[in-house]
């Protein structure tokens, strides 16, 4: 589903290279965890996948279902089924969460040549998805992310993910700012989306999240490259021994 080939990318403004020859393949139905120390390029990778204009790809390619997505803008990639759950979801004052959800869902439907949702259909879908994430409908009347607690913001991200039904989900530090109960709810929401047709990339610092969302593969990112890949045992090893041995081996 996702194939990143020898990717090099830098910050457009000052030319600082962040991704330096990254290779990664994630198959359909796979849950891949990306771990790595601070500054290794994890969040940058998520932005580049989503098509943020602040970064420039200088070499290599990103293939999604076999096709390069480098020429597509952010909205086109989203409509094609790439979803990014943000580490820091952005506030949109004055725009009710419900309104935002409806616009987003209908824009994606439009891009697929489908009819707009009727209001009853839309409300039914939201009610179902919100119920599963323990989200009160009253919260959805509030402007998107404005005054939301850390837990509410992350749940709102997963709600959007489950309503938009993407094929490739990228979760950027979804566990940060969550207490253990919220972590459980969010993880259950992500696990409910696991399917043979969908790939999920989980970016995290901690093994803790991976106890709830058990990955099929684990990749260690360091200085913009994947320096080691393995199964979930690799995450445990990192938790116990830290990154230094792996970094030493790679060097």
């Amino acid at each position: 589903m996702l194939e990143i080939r020898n990717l090099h990318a830098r910050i457009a403004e000052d030319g600082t290279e962040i991704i330096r020859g990254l290779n990664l393949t994630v198959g359909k139905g796979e849950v891949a965890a990306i771990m790595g120390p601070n500054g290794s390029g994890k969040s940058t990778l998520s932005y580049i996948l989503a098509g943020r204009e602040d970064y420039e790809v200088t070499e290599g390619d990103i293939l999604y279902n076999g096709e390069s997505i480098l020429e597509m803008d952010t909205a086109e990639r989203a409509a094609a089924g790439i979803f990014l759950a943000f580490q820091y979801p952005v506030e949109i004052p004055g725009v009710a969460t419900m309104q935002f959800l409806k616009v987003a869902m209908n824009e994606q439907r439009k891009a697929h040549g489908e009819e707009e949702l009727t209001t009853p259909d839309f409300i039914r879908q939201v009610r179902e998805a919100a119920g599963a994430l323990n989200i009160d409908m009253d919260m959805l009347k509030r402007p998107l992310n404005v005054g939301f607690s850390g837990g509410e913001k992350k749940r709102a991200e997963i709600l959007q993910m489950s309503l938009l039904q993407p094929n490739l989900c990228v979760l950027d530090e979804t566990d940060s700012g969550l207490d253990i109960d919220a972590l459980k709810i969010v993880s259950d929401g992500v696990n409910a989306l696991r399917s043979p047709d969908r790939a999920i990339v989980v970016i995290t610092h901690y093994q803790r999240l991976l106890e709830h969302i058990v990955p099929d593969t684990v990749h260690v990112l360091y200085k913009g490259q994947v320096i080691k890949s393995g199964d979930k045992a690799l995450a445990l090893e990192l938790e116990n021994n830290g990154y230094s041995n792996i970094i030493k081996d790679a060097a």
Partner: protein
Amino acid sequence: MPAVQETIDQVRQIDVDQYKYGFETLIEMDKAPKGLNEDIIRFISAKKDEPEWMLEWRLDAYRRWLTMEEPSWARVEYPQIDFNDIYYYAAPKNQTGPKTIDEVDPELLATYEKLGIPLREQEILAGVQESKVAVDAVFDSISVVTTFKEELAKAGVIFMSISEAIREHPELVRKYLGSVVPVTDNYYATLNSAVFTDGSFVFVPKGVRCPMELSTYFRINEKNTGQFERTLIICEDGAYVSYLEGCTAPQRDENQLHAAVVELVALDDAEIKYSTVQNWYPGDSEGKGGIYNFVTKRGDCRGANSKISWTQVETGSAITWKYPSCILRGDNSRGEFYSIAVSNGRQQIDSGTKMMHLGKNTSSRIISKGISAGRSNNTYRGQVSAHRRATNARNFTQCDSLLIGNNCGAHTVPYIEAKNATAQFEHEATTSKISEDQLFYCMQRGIPEEEAIALIVNGFVKEVIQELPMEFAVEAQKLIGISLEGSVG
């Protein structure tokens, strides 16, 4: 919610020409000779069959105007206006005043239909049009028709063109005209007093709640013609009226002048709600053409417990110079000003309000949302003052500016004067840009860039949109989306 969708559809439909009201009606016109002198004023007055006192009033204003100078304090720039190069009177031939709908030139009816303004009462009553709003349609210098006059008369409400009112209710007009905006108030108000041609007159008697929304639709059609609108609204004790005003003009390469005066009078316990959606032609992206909108609007809360509320959505005009104000004379009176001013291209807006607290326990509220895009400049200029005797005056002001792109400007110029120690005035102001983060976030959910901007901007102005009557709110949201078309990239 559907409004946002409509905004998006609307924006999408528009290709090169963003201004959809730019068409011209080809109709034979009856015009006064170009230029301004006492004979022209006599000509206008005679055309309207005015009494002698009205002509004297006009001539007096004209003589005073000759001694005045054009103001230059606003943050707007434009070449010197040649006041002798303008037609001061233009009316469709054979149209000397409002008629019944069957007598109105079909060409004019077609024009209003194209503009989406309902003029046929039967159709409105039959549900062809969804909302029941009484309309006074003003075309260049003349009111062509006023709907629902009879039904309103049953309730005791007088709604007619000001020209008719001068003939039919001279005692009321004489009593109130110029009582809020004096003849010598300012350069453009004085000019208007000399040459005003048409506008609306509303009188709601004691204790009457006007049974429907009233509105006036202004259209400038003729080339090189100035429109000098004069509107007077009076609410007697305990009366209420909600009044809407809409404006459009054809797309032309030269600038046209619109210098209006609007006066509102609210007596004891009366309430007037005045809403404007101003969509004059703004000129092209290089600043060629467009309307100069130099307007004096003022409401007088003359009675105790009276209330006047101004709501405006300003998207058009090359230059806007406009400060709808409230004189809070009656004790416990209240003034409100809600404004959305959108500027794009080379538009210049200098707009705001004045709240003059004179009575005891008076309060006012100002919510201003300015959105600048393109190479435009958007200035909020506001004055809040408390008179020596205005004990317990209260004001809350909030001015928010939103910038789109790097070539536009937003300015806030508040003046606050309190001569009474018990006054409490609060002023909050913010300036922000649509952030890259917000755009990226919306686009990551599949919302294309222009739609994302429309969504964020509609969120920014929500507080003010809520103050508009329902039908206007939807219209205003669409308009804002359209005005910002092409503001990125």
